[in-house]
Every structure is written in C-alpha cells, then in structure tokens.
C-alpha cells in the first residue's frame, strides 16, 4: 500500500520536474558557466586539410603576441608522454555479440592522439593549442601559427574507402578496412535463398549526421600545484568514465583527478567519450600551473564533435511465394572516421538486422572502416535506426515489387508471443513482448484505415499523400555496472548518490520517484546527488537505454536494504523482534507503535548501543552489474504530404506505440519520444554531414548549412505506450529513451516512398530532400 502523500510522486506519476525551477530561471550551471580566478583561455588551431603530413609548425609569431602564454603542438604532447584516447571500439556488454574477424586476425586499431603528431587525417583535427589571457588574443595568435603541410589524397565517402585504390589513412594497416566479420549462418542462409520465390534488394547509405546537443562543449581545467590534483569541469555522458579516461591520458592516478559536471545541455551519445580538448586543457593547466578554459563555438563543434551513423548497406530479403520471410543477407560497412574510435554502432546494428520478424536464417558481413572524416560514435539509439531502416524498407520494397499488402506482410512475419524468448539468427535473445498487439494499436492510433480518404482529399488540394508503418526493436545493453548509495538523514532528507548524470533526461525527478516509491518519502525530500567524482564512486553514464533500467535496480536494492536495517533499528527502539516490524506507508510499525524512517535515522545517529552495521548513517549501497539485455520495441506510423512542384515534405501525422514496460514518469517518457522522433525525422528528411567527395572538405560546418529540425517541421505527435512488464528487469521497466528515433528513419521514408508510388518510386536514400523528391517525380512523370 502506498502512502497517500507519496503516491502522487511514485512510479507511474507524471511528476513535474524538480530540475526545471533552476533551468527556467537561468540558474542552471552548464559547462561554460564554470569560472576560475586567473583562468587562461585555450583556442585550437585545426587542420584545414582532410589528409596531410605535417612538415613543420612555427609558433614564433603567435608566441610573440602579447598575452599569449603557450603554443603547444604534437611535439610537446609526445615529449610530455600524453597518452592517446582510451577508446573501447566494441560494446562492452556480455549480451552483445562478439565481432571476431573471419580470418582470425585482430581488429585493427591505431592510437588516437589528442593532437596530430605526424599527420592530420580529417578537417578539424587539432594541430596546435594556443593559450592566452583572452579568447580573442588566442584567436588572433592562432592566425599567426605557421603550419607547413604536405597534402595527401583523401577519402571520405564510405563506399570509396574499401576500393583498392583508396588513399590509405593508416599505412601500417595497408587498407582502410579495420575488420572483416561474418555473423549468422552462411550455409543456412544460402540454402534458404536458393529456395526463395522472391528476393527484395536494397543498396543504401544511412548518411552521416551530427548529434548537435544545443550546448557546445566547454571545459575548465584547474590543476592545483599544492596538492597535485586536477579538477576538470566539463559536461559529458558520464563523470566517472571521464575521470578515469582523463587520468589515463595525463598519466595521473585516478584519485588525483576530479570531474565535475552540473547541467549538461544534451548528449545523445555525442558526449559519450572523452574528447581531445578535455585532455589538452588539463595538460595545459598542469604545464602552466594555471586554470585553462576552452569553449567551443558551433562551427568548431561541427569540426570536432564526434559524428554519427554513416553505414553503407547492401541487403537482401528472401521470401517464399506466400510472403513468409525465409532469410536475410548482406554487407554493412561502418565508417568510423579518421580514428579507430568506436565500431559499436556497426555491431549493435548487425546483431539485430532481422528485427522482430521471424527470419529463420541470416548472414551478414560487417566491416568497420576509416576515412578522412570526423570520428563517429554512437548517437541516439546507435546502430539500430540504421538497420531498422534497412529492414522496414526491404519489407515495403518486397510488398510493392511482389504484390503484398505492407501491413499483411508484417503481420505474417512478426514474431508471435509464444516464440518469445527468441534466439535471433545473429546471436541475440529477445526477452518478452507482444509485437502484434502493439502494431495493431499504432495502426488504430494513426487511423491507417482512413488513409485513402485523406489521400483523396490531399489530391484535390494538389498534394501527394503517403503513409508508412515501421516496427522496431532496440537492444539496450551498454556498460552493465551501476552504483547507488542511499542515505536517510535524521533531518528528513533522503540522499541518493548515483553515478549516472542527466543531460536532459530528468533523472533528478524520475530517480527521486524511485526512492519515493520504495521508501515512501515525499519527493521533495529526496535529493539526487551526481556529477562530482569526489562524491560519486561509480556510474556507467547515459547510453543504450541503461540509465533508468540500471538506476531503478540499484536504488530499489539499496532501498530494500535501508528498510531491512530500519526494521532492526525500529525493533530495538520500540522493543520487539525485527520480523514483527512492518514497513507501511513510510512508517515502521510494531503493534500500535510506529516510527518514521527519519525517526529511525535519528535513533541510528543518537543511540550508542547499536551493533556496528546499524550505526549512523542509515545508509545502503548497491553496486551491481546487470548482464542481461533489454529489448524495447514498438511501432510507428507516419503520414506525409508532398508538394509535387517543389518536392517538399510535410509531416502531417505521426503516431507511436512503444512498449516501455512499467512507466516511471509518463510525462518524461513522452518527452523522450517526441525528441527522438524529431531526431529520426531530421535524419530522414533534412540532416546530413557532407564532405566534398573530391576535396574532402566539410561542407556542412554551421547552422547555415546543417539543417536542424525546427518547430514548424512537425505536427503534434500522437504518442502512446504499452506497458507490458519487461521480464528481464525485476521491476518490469523497459528502456524508453531511444524508441522515438529507432523506427523514425524507416517509417518516414516509407511514407515518402508511398506518397511517390504513382511515379514508380520504390526507394529514396536519406535525407529525402526536396530536390531529390522533385527529381524522382520528374523522372517518374517522364517514364509514364
């Protein structure tokens, strides 16, 4: 039974966010808001070339500028023994599939130094750091650093990287291909294809995009010469990992490094790994014995933030005459950019190529490659939107080409409830769900049946209307370990120290709801404490739908331990046996007598007759690794109208049904869905990072060229969710952060292609820009 006071704020309540008060009044504290007395400012000189050997760097003119304190480059970096970025190229969770090379060789990796040592391998790679008394002076001086480059041929396009004559980034590897992996069962797949009545084919490039959190990165490093400690104030995807990575790079013991972050202006994966600049300001602060600060400008973000997606796919789906899926095969090339930084989107995609359909056999080749582009890393549902796009496109292509109804084809092949848990043909085991019901719900919500009337109406207005459907599954794995420390304070507050900080997900509220639910204390009295590694011991960070999934487990278990301890304490105070004490409505009852949790905490603090483990503070720690994956899933319907004269697309309706398991804060979950949809639709229709294929130059270097979705690109979304408890989570919670994005690429393009049906269009590569659509209409009109 829940206490009446706490019920409105426990699990399932749309509690208004606690963090909003400071954020709407301008009192948040973002990375650039940190200041230190005597701080110097760093500016980075970045390579204008995609691929070049550094012949010489002459900093003398820059050093002569008044106010300049240092100009540092690769030579000093090497001399000081600064280590490369400690990338983990593959996902670290035991549930994700292994990615061994087919020939038994090791996956190629090369050191990613914080500054270019001998060669630059992408436009924007750091060549020198200028530290001065103001940003303006540092910028003026940066213009004076002379760098002599020997320009090399470059390769940026993903398909081009694997060609025999492609310029090679890392000579020691001999080619740009870093791994060559085969997953699935080739023999079974070939056999199934041999028997197929139909084969649907796609060759597509899921284009490169940028995560674009609205807060540009910034970092303030403060080296304390007296203690030898380094403090870095910088927003990232997780403070604890950043601390360890920074300690490694600058060669300091982890206990001598402190990372602080308060408010973080978005992440989406972009902030998930340490950045060169974070290490460089720390190094400069230590060298100069003065605080050093750096703040990115947006155009610098486009040249320095990790980018995302960029997967080239060739895939085939085999069907029998009745439309039953028989097998799937293909090849995925994941463009990691200039450094071997992260291949996990390739891995996390290829392991679920077949989605939630019953595909008996599958075989895929997967190759991570390097190119003269920014390094990539996971971004909003890493790897999964790409492959869901491929599968959902293949289904629509098969339907159009072989005369099946799109919805019926999905109904025919979606996994049945009885088939779960299900071992997919690529090595993953799905938990539970009701895929059919959820799909039927979204068809209802999106009024699939009423579409033709709306299409006819659109036609009268001169518009082409289309509707699309897409299902998805999302592999939630990520760093398996999380830690919570729950303390009940005698003054009526509950402190929850937890390692994973919010970058907008609302943890201060939703995590507090968990403590409110488990300990029956008003949410106003729960404090979520995070973001300072001197307080927080461990935390995996926000990614892969792990935040709430793992936080709920460790906060729940720590809360249970608090209750168990409290019962023993109450028994001592009230005189009785611990087993007779009941925890009800936030109070510990023994017969007629009762104590609040806070009374118990006070007793723990004040009494001197307690056994060691009951002495104050009333506290419990849960540090646990969760080695099972979760598989959130759902269905989206998107409806578009196209102006045939311009090729412009308007999203006129967008409906979602996501199974989030038990919903902790429905308001926040809906918010996550809305934002996720916008990022997915953004990729489908407008966003793209473009490098000139010939020159390797970045052509989308600011908001003047990189199209960010705006308010007038969308209607109100119709977002619903199913709440089928997740069987791999003790509380039934399923991740809910990525579902907005995962199917959005596929469903949007499915709708666009459907609208263009009468012109014979069967596929369009992303982004479906007005010009591309207009051309397809022109070609179609000519052909008919």
């Amino acid at each position, binding site marked *: 039974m829940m206490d009446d006071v706490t019920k409105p704020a426990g699990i399932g309540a749309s509690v208004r966010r606690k963090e909003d008060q400071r954020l709407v009044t301008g009192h948040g504290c973002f990375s650039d808001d940190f200041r230190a007395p005597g701080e110097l400012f760093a500016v980075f000189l970045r390579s204008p070339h995609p691929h070049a050997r550094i012949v010489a760097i002459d900093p003398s003119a820059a050093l002569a500028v008044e106010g300049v304190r240092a100009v540092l480059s690769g030579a000093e970096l090497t001399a000081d023994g600064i280590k490369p970025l400690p990338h983990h190229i593959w996902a670290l969770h035991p549930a994700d599939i292994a990615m061994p090379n087919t020939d038994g060789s090791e996956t190629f990796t090369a050191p990613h130094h914080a500054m270019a040592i001998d060669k630059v391998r992408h436009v924007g790679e750091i060549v020198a750091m200028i530290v001065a008394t103001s940003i303006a002076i540092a910028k*003026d001086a940066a213009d004076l650093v002379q760098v002599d480059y020997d320009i090399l041929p470059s390769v940026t396009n993903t398909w081009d990287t694997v060609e025999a004559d492609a310029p090679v980034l890392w000579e020691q590897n001999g080619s740009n291909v870093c791994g060559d992996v085969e997953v699935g069962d080739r023999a079974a797949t070939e056999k199934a294809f041999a028997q197929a009545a139909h084969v649907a084919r796609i060759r597509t490039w899921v284009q490169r995009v940028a995560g674009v959190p609205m807060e540009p990165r910034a970092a303030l490093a403060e080296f304390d010469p007296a203690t030898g400690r380094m403090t870095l104030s910088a927003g990232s995807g997780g403070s604890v990992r950043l601390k360890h990575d920074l300690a490694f790079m600058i060669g300091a013991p982890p206990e001598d490094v402190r990372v602080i972050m308060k408010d973080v202006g978005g992440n989406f994966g972009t902030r998930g790994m340490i950045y060169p600049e974070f290490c460089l300001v720390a190094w400069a602060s230590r060298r100069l014995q003065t605080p050093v600060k750096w703040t990115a400008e947006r*155009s610098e973000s486009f040249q320095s933030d990790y980018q995302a997606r960029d997967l080239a796919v060739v895939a085939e789906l085999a069907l029998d005459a009745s439309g039953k899926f028989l097998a799937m095969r293909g090849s995925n090339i994941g463009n990691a950019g200039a450094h071997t930084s992260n291949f996990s989107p390739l891995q996390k995609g290829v392991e679920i190529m077949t989605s939630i359909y019953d595909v008996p056999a599958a075989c895929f080749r997967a190759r991570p490659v390097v190119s003269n582009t920014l390094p990539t890393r996971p971004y909003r549902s890493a790897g999964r939107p790409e492959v869901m796009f491929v599968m959902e496109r293949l289904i629509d292509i098969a339907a159009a080409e072989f005369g099946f109804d799109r919805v019926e084809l999905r109904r025919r092949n979606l996994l049945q409830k009885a088939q779960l848990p299900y071992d997919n043909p690529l090595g993953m085991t799905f938990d539970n769900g009701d895929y059919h019901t959820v799909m039927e719900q979204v068809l209802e919500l999106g009024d699939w049946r009423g579409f033709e009337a709306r299409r006819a109406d659109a036609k009268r207005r001169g518009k082409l209307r289309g509707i699309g459907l897409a299902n998805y599954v999302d592999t939630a794995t990520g760093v398996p370990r999380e830690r919570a420390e729950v303390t009940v304070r005698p003054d009526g507050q509950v402190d929850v120290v937890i390692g994973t900080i919010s970058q907008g997900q609302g943890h201060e509220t939703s995590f507090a709801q968990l403590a409110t639910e488990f300990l029956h204390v008003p949410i106003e009295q729960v404090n979520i404490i995070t973001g300072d590694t001197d307080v927080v011991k461990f935390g995996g960070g926000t990614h892969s739908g792990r935040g709430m999934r793992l936080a709920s487990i460790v906060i729940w278990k720590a809360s249970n331990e608090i209750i168990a301890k409290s019962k023993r304490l109450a028994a001592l105070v009230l005189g009785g046996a611990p087993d007779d004490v009941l925890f009800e409505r936030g109070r510990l009852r023994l017969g007629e007598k009762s104590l609040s949790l806070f009374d118990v905490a006070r007793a723990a603090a004040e009494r001197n007759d307690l056994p060691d483990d009951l002495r104050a503070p009333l506290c419990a720690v849960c540090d646990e690794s969760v080695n099972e994956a979760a598989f959130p899933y759902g269905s989206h319907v998107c409806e578009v109208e196209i102006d045939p004269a*311009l090729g412009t697309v308007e999203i006129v309706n967008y409906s979602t049904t996501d199974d989030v398991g038990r919903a902790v804060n429905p308001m926040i979950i809906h918010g996550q869905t809305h934002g996720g949809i916008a990022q997915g639709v953004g990729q489908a229709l407008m966003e793209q990072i473009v490098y000139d294929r010939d020159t390797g130059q970045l052509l989308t270097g600011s*908001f003047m*060229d990189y199209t960010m979705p705006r308010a007038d690109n969308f209607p109100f979304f119709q977002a619903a969710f199913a709440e089928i408890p997740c069987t791999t989570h003790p509380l039934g919670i399923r991740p809910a952060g990525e579902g907005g994005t995962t199917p959005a690429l596929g469903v949007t393009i499915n709708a666009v292609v459907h609208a263009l049906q009468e012109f014979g269009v069967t596929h369009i590569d992303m982004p479906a820009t007005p010009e591309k659509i207009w051309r397809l209409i022109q070609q179609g009109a000519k052909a008919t």
Partner: protein
Amino acid sequence: MRDFTYHRPKTLDDAAALLAVEDSRPMSGGMSLLPSMKLRLSDWAHIVDLAAVPNLSGVREEGGQIVVGARTTHVQVATSQLLHARLPALAELAEGIGDPLVRNRGTIGGSIANADPAADYPSAVLALRATIVTNLREISGDTFFNGLFETALEPCEIVTAVRFARARRAAYAKYRHPASRYAVVGAFVAQYDDEVRVAVTGASSHVFRIAEIEALLRDNFSVAAIESVAPTLPAMNADLFASADYRAHLVVEMVRRAVAAASSRNALAD
C-alpha cells in the same frame, strides 16, 4: 571578431565624415555584418553605428510613392498599417525575413546595402521600381545591384531611405533555405499600368529580372499566361541544397506562385 574602433555619430554628416576614413563600415541592425565579423569573414578598423542618426526610420506615403526609412526594421515593415493598405506585398516579404528576433533588429537599409545574393529585399527593389536615397544622391534601383555583395554605393555613401512605386498588384513568393532561412529563390512580381516586373533573388549572383516572363504577363497577368514558359535565365547558383537546374525550376515555380497570389488580390485603387 577582430577589434575595431566604434563610432556612434549623431548626424548623417558626421557619419559620412567618419566613413571617409579608410577601412570603415556603416552598421545598421548588424544582422549581416556582425555574423560575418564573428566568423572572421570580414573585419573593419572602424564601425560606424547609425543608431543615433535621427530621421532614418518609418514608413510613409509621399507623392504616390512609399518611402521606407533605411533604419526601419523588418518587423516595422511587416506590421506597417500603411503598407498593409497600400503595398501589402512588401510587408509580406518583410514578414518572411530571417526569424522574428532578427526581424526585430535588422533593417531594410542594412539589407540592401549588404546586397547578399540570397537576401529578400533586392527583389522588391527591382520589382517595385525603387529608388535608393542616400546622403549624396538618388540611385535607381535598376542600377543599384551590380554583383555578389556589390552595389552602386560609394564608400562614404549611406542609404537613408528606399522609395517604392506602388504597384497595382504585387506579391512575393519565397522558397527559403531550411537551415539558413535565406531565399533559395525569392520571386517578386509587380503589376503596373504600363509594365509588369518580375525580379528574382537567391538564384544567381545578384537579383535579376526576367524580361521574357514580364512580357507575357504584361499582356495577360495570369498564371495561365506563363504556364509553359521556359525562360532564359542567368547562371544559377548551385549549392548543397539546390543544384542549378532545381533552382531554375524553382525560379519559374516561385514566379508562378507570386503571380497566383498577386492575381487573387484586388487591384489597389489610388
């Protein structure tokens, strides 16, 4: 941004005198100038802020012409009662410039003097038979825009007002860039008793007119009159968002839309 000397003259003459110094640039709203300076695409030793120069803003009718002061902001043009009654197309154009916060600050004089190839106002200058009034002289709008960011203005010359000839009917149709919000193609169509003017911005190095379409519309001001026209156009801009031939298509399409909007409008009485 590189540093500079800031001037805030109180008279037009003082402003002109300050601009006589080498490497000086006048600033009105600063919505184009400051971004280019921030990105270090341009820098100036002297910035002459025209904010304190009096009598440069406002919209009035004078001898059958609409006079818009150079420092009139886009939002003032967009919401001018006089324009909504007498030349609504110009107000509509202003309502589509940049975004509301930029419109609160940016001015017509600054926009015209900057001559961005993708700015909106140049199309109105050409189509509405405008005269650019400066501290030194009056310049026909027809000869004002000479190329990419190039105008007929002399270094010490300051735009003080723009005079537009009221059209019988007019409309502006813009295809805006989804990221920058500038015009990929903007077409301004104006019908006069003796001629029709069709001016297009965004599509080429600078604003241009399309005589071929103007001739067709002079005889028959309707969409039907230009239904199958394939006009000869100057070299089209090409960028990531729109290739040259897509832009050429958009030119015709935007002209068509502007004509449709203008023809649905009642001809304004004098």
